[in-house]
């Protein structure tokens, strides 16, 4: 009798497992592309997986260019690009959907009287054409350029927006946003850049062309030192159920706080 009961129980259990599975989402979401999006996409993937335990989420950090190529060749579900798609990429049938915006604040020491610079001025400061603060309305002191290490997403973003790629004359190359902020807060003549979300009161964020860096100005595009984080898909190719659900999730208002925690401004 005991045996019978246990068998019946076992059968019930197995049945319950199967009915449970039938409703659950399963499958794989493969993403490929921008290394700068690592934090944002990693956080989104993690929270998506914990909500849908049957889904495997993968992220291949290869760079925006290879991510776009991977979508085109069907090697991944969603491509990740930290720049807007070019026209020829759009005409080849790719669709870019902005998931988040990455604002980069230009920071100086609070003692520095300069409070506004144009993008051109920032570019000439970083390439070494302007070396003294007095040329941009500040004290007579040498400008100390603080930047990030080669390969950093913030450095890549800053240099590509200001058009100073591979031309910056850094005095210090630091390996984290926190180090940049600390160093700038210690040196009255320093200038640095850092992800908008991590800027603290110990430093002063400059207005760029008169626009202060805030979540709103990044969102409406008036603060120019920013770049989009783009989800790239192929027009006419239907995403798998899991990938579509992730796509919708990333763009939902539910994902906004996760994106903000990862240091970017949600686009929606």
């Amino acid at each position, binding site marked *: 009798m005991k045996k019978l009961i246990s068998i019946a129980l076992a059968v019930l259990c197995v049945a319950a497992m199967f009915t449970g599975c039938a409703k659950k989402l399963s499958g794989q979401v493969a993403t490929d592309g921008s290394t700068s999006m690592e934090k944002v996409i990693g956080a989104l993937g993690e929270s998506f997986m914990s909500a849908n335990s049957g889904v495997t989420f993968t992220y291949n950090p290869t760079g925006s260019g290879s991510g776009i190529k991977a979508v085109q060749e069907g090697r991944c579900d969603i491509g990740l690009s930290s720049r807007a798609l070019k026209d020829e990429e759009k005409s080849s049938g790719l669709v870019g959907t902005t998931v988040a915006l990455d604002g980069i604040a230009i920071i100086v020491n609070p003692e520095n009287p300069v409070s506004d610079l144009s993008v051109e001025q920032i570019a000439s400061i970083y390439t070494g054409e302007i070396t003294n603060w007095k040329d941009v309305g500040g004290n007579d002191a040498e400008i100390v350029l603080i930047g990030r290490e*080669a*390969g*950093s997403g913030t450095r890549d973003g800053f240099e590509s927006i200001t058009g100073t790629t591979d031309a910056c004359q850094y005095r210090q190359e630091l*390996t984290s946003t926190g*180090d940049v902020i600390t160093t700038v807060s*210690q040196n009255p003549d320093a200038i640095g850049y850092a992800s908008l979300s991590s800027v603290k009161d110990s430093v002063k964020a400059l207005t760029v062309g008169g626009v202060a860096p805030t979540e709103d100005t990044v969102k409406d595009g008036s603060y120019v030192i920013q770049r989009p984080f783009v989800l790239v898909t192929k027009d006419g190719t239907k995403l798998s159920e899991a990938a579509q659900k992730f796509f919708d999730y990333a763009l939902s208002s539910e994902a906004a706080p996760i994106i903000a925690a990862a240091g970017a401004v949600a686009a929606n």
Partner: protein
Amino acid sequence: MKQYLKKQALERVIHGVFLLLGLVTVGCVLLITIYLIVSGIPAIRKIGLVPFLFGKVWASTSKTNPQYGILPFILTSVYGTAGAIVLGVPIGFFTAVYLAKLAPPQLKSILSSAVSLLSGIPSVVYGLVGMLVLVPGIRKLFHIPDGASLLAAIIVLAIMILPSIIKVSVTALEAVPKEYEDASLALGATPVETYLRVSVPAARSGIAAAVVLGVGRAIGEAMAVMMVSGNAPNLPTSLFESVRFLTTAVASEMSYSSGLQQQALFSIALVLFLFILLINATLNFFLKRGKEA
């Protein structure tokens, strides 16, 4: 008899376990060595040994013209270590003589525990203090735009190698037979004369080993110097230049690197590894000579 055999079998098993655990360490060293050589060679072959070791420009992520010359890093590591030795050895040496021979017992125990504490401080703390106190201090003292420099790194390294130098030197000095000193004192030499002319020469191989140990510690340090040296890949032309060490070159770029850049970082690690092997060989030489003497 049976019990004896049983005991012996147990003995063998325990021997085996000890051997196995010993081999774990050896295995790790072998694994790391082989891995470094295998992953370090390809980039050197691609770049060429001479342009790699003697190239003056490091621009690993340049999209148009990437260059992989590590001469700035090698020179920085050599100068930085040499500077730390020049600053650290005199301080460490005299502290060791004082601790081993002259200090009253109570003061000695306080000083010894302070030295031990210094060696227990994590390097990131040295870096942090250097970043917040030393770097702004150098900037103000020398009226230069930025204090993150070779000098800051040398000062931090000099402090960091003090415990190794002091501890090993003290051990060497305390091992000098008391009869040597008694003989010298009996001949009318003052205590300080005795310590400097008799004890120190008798302990010289131990003291040399202490210095080499300090060199090893200084050349391998990454975290603290990364925070105070500025990290720009410049040739170390002055003490106030922002510079990058061999260790920090690997540490700062590894996390995002790819392709040839990553391979080149392994090659830098291989060069650093060879430096450290050389230092270890020197250390062994001094220690062996110390035993024979």
